[in-house]
């Protein structure tokens, strides 16, 4: 018997969320990546280019002349069977919107990072979620991460799910600008060998554009065909749910770390009042939860990791037992019902036929990258607590942290 030295399968490193995703690109051995500068997402491309320069990643790194081209290039690379990565922020993401829309229609498993950023004008670098949310109806898988570790893990899961032939849909990983893209934390970076066991190669199969497979992709259709094609995308998105669960199970088997697939529950089990949110605002909210718990208040927090597919079952299961639910949007939807944000609408919709429908209240917070501090989190719990006591939904939307009148 020989004794083998056990090499560490994961190594801890101090890296930013952007760098964590860049490391995932190298681990996934991506084939084509396209870059175009816009803050804050482009930090990921700065790291990817360095990884390539240092020989850590072999792939085609293309500096596009616009976001539109950036997304078009990876779309076409994906069609011939290349694993791809791309990304953008704010108005850059919007500049690429045509390409983004057709990538989903074409069922191409492009993985993108959105460094969430406010939509200009006025020019603003801070975080808002309206950029990524704009694709919520198009057939993109859409996830929000809240730490560097989760960014890396989710990127690996993203390729696995997107490239699964049962799914074949693109996936956008949203990372809050500055708070995640630029902040460095300790992240466990797995060995490439381990990742190969988790992430199978991308095989486009009968849809691959190649002289050996002479197909025509995306011929013009009339009203007799498009509805069926949309239904196919719908079926793929429905199947994605199970594929995500499978991926999380496989993740635990390979990396030995347990991931809950769709939501993170924080002290929700016996909570009367639960706040719901996405992304990095989870951190101050969790602090507030602990402090309020110390004062004897039964409060909790539910963080959605996946927005598409939307985890209806988890949302119903966790929230229908609460006495009040407050939804925090780092986005806006001007003129929408109750003038609340997008997440609030989705949660209300998910709860409409829940066994027990809890009273709700909506918050808009942290726009333009404004910090959602622990006192603001406490303020939201206080308002939600009043709803719990009244037992009736408050159809007002409160702007938390805004100067001047809140509603």
């Amino acid at each position: 018997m020989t004794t083998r030295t056990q090499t560490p399968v994961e190594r801890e490193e101090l890296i930013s969320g952007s760098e964590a995703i860049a490391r995932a690109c190298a681990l996934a051995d991506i084939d084509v990546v396209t870059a175009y500068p816009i803050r804050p997402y482009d930090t990921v491309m700065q790291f990817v280019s360095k990884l390539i320069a240092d020989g850590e990643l072999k792939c085609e790194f293309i500096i596009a002349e616009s976001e539109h081209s950036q997304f078009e290039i990876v779309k076409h690379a994906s069609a011939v069977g290349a694993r791809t990565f791309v990304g953008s922020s704010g108005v850059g993401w919007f500049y690429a919107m045509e390409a983004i829309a057709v990538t989903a229609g074409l069922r191409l498993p492009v993985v993108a990072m959105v460094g969430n950023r406010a939509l200009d004008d006025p020019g603003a670098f801070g975080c808002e979620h309206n950029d990524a949310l704009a694709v919520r109806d198009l057939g993109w898988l859409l996830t929000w991460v809240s730490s560097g570790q989760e960014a890396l893990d989710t990127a690996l899961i993203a390729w696995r799910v997107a490239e699964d032939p049962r799914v074949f849909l693109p996936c956008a990983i949203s990372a809050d600008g500055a708070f995640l893209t630029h902040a460095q934390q300790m992240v466990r970076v797995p060995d490439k060998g381990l990742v190969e066991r988790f992430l199978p190669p991308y095989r486009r199969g009968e849809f691959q554009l190649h002289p050996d497979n002479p197909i025509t992709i995306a011929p013009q259709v009339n009203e007799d065909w498009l509805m069926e094609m949309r239904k196919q995308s719908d079926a793929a998105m429905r199947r994605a749910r199970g594929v995500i669960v499978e991926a999380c199970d496989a993740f635990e088997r390979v990396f030995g770390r347990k991931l809950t697939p769709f939501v993170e529950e924080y002290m929700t089990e016996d909570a009367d009042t639960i706040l719901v949110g996405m992304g990095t605002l989870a951190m101050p909210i969790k602090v507030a939860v602990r402090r309020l718990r110390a004062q004897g208040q039964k409060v909790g927090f539910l963080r959605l990791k996946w927005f598409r597919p939307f985890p209806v079952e988890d949302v119903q299961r966790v929230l229908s037992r609460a006495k009040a639910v407050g939804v925090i949007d780092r986005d806006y939807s001007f003129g929408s019902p109750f003038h609340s944000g997008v997440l609030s609408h989705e949660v209300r919709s998910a709860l409409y036929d829940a066994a027990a429908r809890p009273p709700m209240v909506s918050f808009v917070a942290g726009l333009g990258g404004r910090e959602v501090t622990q006192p603001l989190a406490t303020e939201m719990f206080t308002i939600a607590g009043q709803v719990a006591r009244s037992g009736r939904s408050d159809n007002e939307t409160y702007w938390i942290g805004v100067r001047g009148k809140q509603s």
Partner: protein
Amino acid sequence: MTTYAVEVVYRGVFQKTLSRNICRGIVLAAHKEGKVGTAFGRYGDSPERNGVPAKYFAVVADDRIELEESLAKYEPKEVDVTICADDTLCRGLESWGWYGLQAINALTKENGTLIVTSKQTPESLLEDIHRTDTPYNLAILSGPASFSGLWVYKDDHTDVRILGALAKVLPGLVGLESYCQAIEEQWKSGAKVVSARRSYEQLHVRPVEPGEGSSAPRFSFEKPGWEEMKEALVVQGVAKGAGFRGGDGGFQAGRSEVFKKFSTRTMRPVINFEICTKCTLCWLQCPDTCFDVTPDGLYDVNTEACCGCGVCEDVCPVPDCITMVGEEHFKDNFSQYDWYQRDKEGYRQWLKGITAAQSAQKRSHGLHHWGQYQEELAAAGRGDNDDN
């Protein structure tokens, strides 16, 4: 309470203005009688392509509420009158892939009317028109098909002549006097009013019994559900070509099985194989890849693929080697080369006759030079916008 629907089946681009004029004329005339209507082109035909069959509709109802039943639709389910603006469409029309060749009277109601502008006899047209299970009427508006282009309209009064004919076959829709009023208002042309009245008087209508007409099968199709359709917007490419008739020599291109272009054609190239110098130009310059290359280096027109553009005739360096001949002289998509191989003498005789017959007719597929239409109208004794 009544709703009337009329369709104009026409040649894309060449008859775009014509069909629009007809359908707008119907709605404007109906307005004179206090009725409401709508005129619209079939959306899927837009953008139109030269010669590719297209449709325009007019729907008229007694009141607004009743009309709404017919709005927000691409195509009425059935029509009272089908107007066929070019008699070569009588054999059927294939406007897009998948749906095959659809009969000219596919939407015509029982006891409805098919109006055809034609110089042929009803009996001759009925050889082309698919037979129906129910009776209808065939009306012939005597004259050639009127073709022009996008920018320059050939105002030979075909539009108002059709309106006059419509007053005759469907008086319940709009009466002749209302058409005349609308024409006067639209075109400020007394001559056009006269043309409408004349066609009203001269229209020839012939009842068609069930079972009369061509026995060519009607094409039917099923549309697959989303589970059967290939995902990721993929369809299979066209199969590679092979030797002529599957043999070793020559070449026959693979061709789409779900879209044939022949119903776009009003004329087809007829070839004198005996004077062909095998220069390749007809084959090489054909935008529709319709020439099959025979093992002996001749070029046979694949008449399912040919849309009759006439470029081959224009590029052929040998006089009278390729002649464009009107479709009314043909009944099917036979191979000229196969016939020539089988019966050279018979082919020679046929070729002689058919090219002679054709030389008496003039090709009219749009503009050849500025002022051409005025010259043609003057020669025919009809001035443009003559308002006496």
